[in-house]
């Protein structure tokens, strides 16, 4: 018995050591800073997402399945610990306490069995698309079931001999064992004892074998240890922010082979349990693009294990990463919407890995889809990502006749209105910018603009993996903004907003950043906008990814809509943190993969499932994408797309 335990402990220790070594073939990534914050975040997550199953229960069926197995096993484990402790301390649980203890433990086992059978039914009968069933799944489900059932048989044999005749009223407190006790009731005591002993050893060795199997293979049950570890080391900062590159010292850029990942990214791969929640949430997968975050992670994981086994001098060379384990189409399909990361129960960070893969092909090999190259060339030569009709406009054109202050004329203003390339150059988005200016003027906000001088924030370059352009842009912009002594930026585009708020601090740019929906909802609350008209309109709200999942701004735009008298807000099934991307994120505004369906068509269907006659949003990309989706469906008569601020502008009193 002790030998068995020692063997199990040794194998687990060896496995942890082996994994530790494997994670550290990756690059350094300092996650030891701010350890108190990390520990606190881990405790909260441990309670809410671990014990409380918050993330799992977003989907009731697999959520309850995991909950039953998790809590059942946890109680059984605690019970074993209690058993061992009381045994060594020579304490005997007696009377009602023992009966309750026995009852709870027995019920836990039954819950685990129910969980396992739900899992078996789901995996082998229902077979949902996202589950990629391999041999390991069958092995571990069988192991759990056999361990629990043999446990009950052993208990049943004991009860048959010790309780059934003498204390039958006790026996029912162990319902699982009781069933088997009844079955063995006819057996003579000696046979029962022999059978009990054999089965006990079988049970013990099976548990040991299971532990050794999990330790030596790359079974997903390893997640019991690795997933909490991954949750502990997870990114506690803003979502999807890649690390800057060091222009002075960089020798290679992005991820071209496995060892270019950081150790934390490799731990990520190790922690993936192949559950497929990310795949179900992924707009690229839903629109039949070649990307599944689940498959990408698993493929990278397989590549990582293959690479780690590769030795210098092996024939055939190192297996290729891009073009081998993953294809370029896969990582270009990502819209960086963060739905995968929101869905992942073990806190994987898919986006930065995908950006790292893009960085390598773009910056080391100059390989990218033609339209991505065109967009980047425009950013380089023209300072904005737009081509075509937009090049007929210049950045300052939208200000004509508005008598706005530019910072060059007077930088002594409360805030800078940062319009963004799209809001300044694309006709439809300029309308939104003009609405916003009217609202700001009505509220008496003291703001300035950069006008012709306003550059691009750099976000599209960063999402394209052309980090060098982003960094140069960010550094120049920070110098310019500091030159004008800008303290507060009001951004209309969630992508600019996210860059200023979460990414510019990497380069020493620290500004107060507000999105126009945040400011306006505050202005309404403070009574600075007089809402005098009604709008009899059914609407729904589409959450932009970079406002919602990236920055957790869900209520401000809705508060604005609720403040409009007569307006009815009918939410889509996928909304707030579960919102589906419009299809325009991750530079997909400028390039389209002609594969599968269009994401904005799928999102427009979501809108059409509501009673809304107008779909509102608060991002220039989303607005364009939704309008295009509406056109595709030929619903332009029945359904309009508007920015929240456009609706508000219609109901406020304009100063005369």
């Amino acid at each position, binding site marked *: 018995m002790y030998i068995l335990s020692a063997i199990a402990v040794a194998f687990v220790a060896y496995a942890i050591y082996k994994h530790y070594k494997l994670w550290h073939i990756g690059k350094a990534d300092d996650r030891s800073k701010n350890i108190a914050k990390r520990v606190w975040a881990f405790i909260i997550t441990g309670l809410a997402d671990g014990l409380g199953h918050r993330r799992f229960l977003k989907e009731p069926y697999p959520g309850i399945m995991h909950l039953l197995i998790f809590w059942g096993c946890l109680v059984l484990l605690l019970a074993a610990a209690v058993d061992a402790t009381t045994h060594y301390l020579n304490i005997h649980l007696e009377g009602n306490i023992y009966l309750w203890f026995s009852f709870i433990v027995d019920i836990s086992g039954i819950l685990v069995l129910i969980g396992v059978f739900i899992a078996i039914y789901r995996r082998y009968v229902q077979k949902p698309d996202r589950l990629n069933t391999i041999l390991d799944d069958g092995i571990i489900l069988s192991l759990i079931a056999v361990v629990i059932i043999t446990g009950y048989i052993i208990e049943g044999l004991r009860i048959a001999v010790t309780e059934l005749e003498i204390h039958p009223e006790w026996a029912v407190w162990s319902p699982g064992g009781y069933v088997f006790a009844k079955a063995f009731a006819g057996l003579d005591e000696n046979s029962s004892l022999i059978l009990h002993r054999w089965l006990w050893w079988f049970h013990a060795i099976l548990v040991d074998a299971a532990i050794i199997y999990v330790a030596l293979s790359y079974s997903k049950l390893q997640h019991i240890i690795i997933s909490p570890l991954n949750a502990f080391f997870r990114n506690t900062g803003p979502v999807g922010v890649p690390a800057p590159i060091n*222009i002075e010292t960089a020798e290679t850029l992005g991820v071209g082979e496995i060892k270019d990942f950081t150790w934390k990214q490799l731990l990520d791969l190790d922690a993936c349990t192949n559950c497929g929640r990310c795949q179900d949430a992924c707009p690229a997968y839903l629109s039949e693009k070649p990307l599944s975050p689940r498959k990408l992670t698993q493929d990278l994981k397989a590549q990582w294990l293959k690479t780690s086994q590769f030795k210098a001098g092996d024939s055939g060379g190192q297996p290729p990463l891009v073009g081998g384990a993953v294809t370029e189409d896969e990582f270009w399909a990502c819209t960086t919407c963060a739905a995968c990361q929101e869905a992942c129960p073990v806190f994987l960070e898919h986006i930065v890995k995908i950006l790292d893969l893009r*960085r390598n092909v*773009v*910056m*080391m090999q*100059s390989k990218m889809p033609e339209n991505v190259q065109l967009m980047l060339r425009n950013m380089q*030569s*023209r300072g904005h990502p737009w081509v075509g009709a937009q*090049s007929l406009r210049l950045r*300052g054109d939208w200000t004509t006749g508005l008598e706005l202050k530019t910072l060059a004329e007077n930088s002594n203003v409360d805030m800078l209105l940062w319009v963004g390339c799209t809001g300044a150059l694309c006709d439809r988005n300029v309308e939104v910018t003009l609405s916003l200016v009217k609202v700001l003027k009505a509220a008496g906000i003291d703001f300035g603009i950069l006008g012709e001088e306003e550059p691009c924030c750099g976000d599209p370059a960063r999402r394209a993996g052309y980090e060098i352009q982003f960094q140069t842009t960010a550094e120049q912009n920070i110098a310019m903004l500091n030159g004008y002594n800008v303290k507060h930026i009001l951004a209309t585009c969630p992508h600019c907003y996210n860059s200023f708020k979460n990414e510019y601090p990497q380069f020493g740019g620290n500004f107060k950043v507000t999105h126009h929906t945040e400011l306006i909802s505050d202005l309404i609350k403070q009574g600075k906008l007089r809402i005098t008209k009604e709008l009899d309109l059914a609407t729904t709200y589409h959450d932009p990814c970079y406002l919602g999942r990236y920055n957790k701004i869900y209520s401000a735009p809705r508060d604005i809509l609720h403040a409009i008298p007569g307006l009815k807000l009918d939410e889509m099934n996928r909304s707030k943190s579960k919102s589906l991307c419009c299809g325009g994120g991750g530079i997909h505004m400028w390039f389209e993969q002609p594969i599968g369906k269009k994401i904005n068509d799928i999102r427009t269907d979501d809108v059409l499932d509501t009673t809304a006659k107008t779909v509102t949003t608060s991002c220039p990309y989303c607005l364009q994408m939704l309008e295009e989706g509406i056109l595709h469906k030929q619903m332009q008569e029945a359904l309009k797309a508007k920015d929240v601020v456009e609706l508000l502008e219609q109901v406020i009193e304009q100063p005369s």
Partner: protein
Amino acid sequence: MHIIVCVKQIPDPEVPPAKFKIDPATKKVVPPPGVPPVISVFDERACELACRLKEKHNAKITVITMGPGKVSDVVKHALAMGGDDGVILQDQAFENSDSFGTAYILSQAIKKIGSYDLILCGRQAADWDTGQVGSILAEILGIPAITIAKDIQPEGDKLRVFRVMEDGYEVVETPIPCLVTVSNEVGLPRLPSGMGIIQAARKQIPVWTAQDIQVDPAKIGPAGAHTEVINLFIPVRETTCEIITADTAAEAAIKLAEKLREIKVI
């Protein structure tokens, strides 16, 4: 092989003409504010062709530009694409040189650089579109000039140049050293790689003045100009739209055809 590429910085040619202004006093174009200057599109293709030759035939690329202001950006761009060295020619005396003056200044700089096998220029600058500097430069240097090329293939100690024609291309064989002007048929220039940008950023680009390259003041600037700008104006473009209506599409098509014949389009 040593390739010298001549590049020019120009106002972004994608900006619509109506946004430009003309200064009648100096007869100069005033680009709209907020529009950054770019490398001339044909020159960028010359860089692309040079980079392709370098990849295949192990060449060294020197990029040379002349112009006022912050022209280092276009040289850095060309270096980031794959160029090895850069040279900037900048001097007040160079200003207002015409094609002859410019070609002469370039020729003096190239003489200072020394040996070379191939000089590449854009077929014309995308701002003034004169397309003269390349040919005049070759004339001054006394080397063959082949214009409007879309590809170059080394053949022993000669070069085969694929020259764009209206209905195809012709292949010209030339000894080296020679000068080739490059057309847009070369294809889309590469986006500078991240590593390329990093390496270009670390490079120092020397600035040569009139004194450094020993130019004859009589041959440059307004004094050396062979041409004179008499008038500079933005052409007025008028468009009118007429919608042809009919009951059926077939009828409308007939009416459209008649109209087109009437105005002698078909």
